[in-house]
């Protein structure tokens, strides 16, 4: 990560370019984690919660665990994250791991910054780099102003932001999310989506559980069904996604990467960056062509902090109109691509903040009454 110092958290875009389809050379991360005949039970006479699970999670893989309540999803997540040791079998390979629990308890006697400093040190970070990384993570999730607030006095959503931040601090090679989106506001959810895309593009693996079946669907999650202690890989794509999960996901990751590349390349990233940007964009096809508005509804995204010397982003899918006033950028677009656009915007840099996401009836749509940002 040579360029990382100068260019900050999104330097992977310049160093490696978008992840090639079909898994090209990765960089910067250890290669995933593997479970061999893993079983877990809490006591000799207790029933097996999971048993004989063989799984391979290579770098760059996004995995979604599905199953009913009590099916063992969380137990399996804890084993994958290394929080829990399997009762039988073994776990091979352990990249640096970030784990976000479902409910982060507010009882700890630290401020957000102190807690993140301790956790960052436990992850092997130190000094100035740790401090700026904490600022970066909190700011990205919209929690910068709460850095000095004691965790004890924080709301559930704020605590969850701190929990997400501690997992993202080390840019982990394995990110494990147990319903991590619960309690986050819209902008923070989008920021977490963006962080997941970043980890994947950086060659990291991400494993998650979430109630929302559409969560990260556009990034091409492999779906695993956990039931009665066994795990089956569900091969088919989620309903409603055209073209299969994996190709769709590759396109989404490419969109995200290409747009950030286009933006960053024009930002004066140097000749090498410009060259790479060209490589990344060549032959990309019309992935970002403007789409027909679906269902007559539109999403309006407002961001602030858009760099003044940066051209308007191009090739964003589904964008209908864009306007800027000073550092404020307002994008009116088709709801289907809004996640990708949000992530692309957030990937430009820490200074870009999402000020509002709301859904409005389009010119031909006449329905009313949906909540702002009510897509999720």
């Amino acid at each position, binding site marked *: 990560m040579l360029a990382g110092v100068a260019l900050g958290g999104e330097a992977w875009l310049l160093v490696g370019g978008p992840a090639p389809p079909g898994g090209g050379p990765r960089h910067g991360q250890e290669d995933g984690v593997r479970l061999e005949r893993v079983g877990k039970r809490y006591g000799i006479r207790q029933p097996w919660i999971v048993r004989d699970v063989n799984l391979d999670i290579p770098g760059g893989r996004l995995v979604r665990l599905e199953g009913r309540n009590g099916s063992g999803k969380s137990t399996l997540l804890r084993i994958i994250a290394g*929080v*829990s040791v399997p009762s039988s079998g073994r776990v091979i390979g352990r990249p640096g791991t970030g784990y976000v*629990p479902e409910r982060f308890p507010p009882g*700890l006697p630290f401020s957000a910054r102190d807690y993140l400093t*301790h*956790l960052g*040190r*436990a992850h*092997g970070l130190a000094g100035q780099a740790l401090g700026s990384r904490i600022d970066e993570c909190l700011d990205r999730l919209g929690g910068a102003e709460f850095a000095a607030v004691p965790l004890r006095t924080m709301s559930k959503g704020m605590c969850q932001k701190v*929990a997400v931040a501690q997992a993202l601090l080390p840019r982990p090679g394995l990110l494990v999310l147990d319903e991590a989106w619960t309690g986050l506001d819209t902008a923070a959810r989008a920021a977490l989506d963006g962080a997941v895309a970043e980890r994947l593009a950086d060659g990291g693996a991400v494993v998650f559980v979430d109630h929302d079946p559409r969560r990260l669907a556009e990034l091409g999650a492999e779906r695993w069904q956990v039931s009665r202690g066994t795990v089956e890989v569900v091969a088919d794509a989620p309903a409603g996604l055209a073209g299969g999960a994996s190709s769709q996901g590759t396109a989404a990751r490419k969109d995200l990467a290409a747009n950030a590349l286009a933006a960053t390349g024009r930002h004066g990233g140097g000749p090498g960056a410009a060259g790479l940007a060209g490589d990344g964009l060549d032959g990309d096809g019309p992935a970002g062509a403007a789409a027909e508005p679906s269902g007559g509804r539109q999403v309006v995204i407002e961001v602030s902090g858009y760099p003044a010397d940066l051209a308007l982003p191009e090739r964003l899918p589904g964008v209908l109109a864009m306007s800027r006033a000073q550092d404020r950028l307002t994008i009116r677009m088709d709801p289907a691509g809004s996640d990708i656009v949000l992530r692309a915007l957030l990937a430009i840099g820490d200074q870009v903040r999402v000020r509002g996401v709301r859904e409005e009836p389009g010119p031909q749509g006449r329905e009313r009454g949906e909540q702002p940002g009510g897509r999720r």
Partner: protein
Amino acid sequence: MIAVCRYQAALLLRSHRWIPPAVLYVLAVAGLGGGSPPLGDGLRWSALMLVPAVAWLTRSMLTAEPGAARACVAAAAGPRRTQVAALLAALAIGAGYALVGVAYEVVTSVKPMNPHGSVRLAATVSVLAGGLVATLICLLVGSAVGAFCNPPLIRRPAAAMLSTTGAVVLALASNVSPANAAARTVGSAPQASSWLPGLPVIAAVALLVVAWTASALAAGHRSG
């Protein structure tokens, strides 16, 4: 490991959970044991009282962190290392208790021995050395008791507290306990304590290693 240990120590200190065992220790040493002028008696008492104080302190440490927060640290450092770090943090703060106890006994016993000369001084140094060894042994035994009788090895609060109390009584009163054996020799004539002088130390260290290992192994298997 050091980072996790610092985190655990900060957790224990800033949650103020270190205070109740400290109050117990101060009351026991200064209150119940107060007014025992010979240094040997004082050091024996302050060493023995470390066992319940450090056992309680260790329990406070092991129950300080909510499960989800512990999981975040365990993902970073591994559950076993996290557990050892917590035990180490409690032991370090327990050592702080011990220093305070020894300092108190030395200070309160200074006056009566002033009029006598160097002969008394040499004897005092020997008593002090014996007292320090006994203090160390009791510190280790207290930590071992705390690790054995609390989560993750014994999870239910009632069972954990009852077994901690029982183990403390056993460690203080039983003839085979290293804490008891070490405390008995404090202040007595050197030849009386010279049979197998290192045995209580070895026993205490062995006890500590077994307790910490069991606790660390169990930490990886817990459910919450």
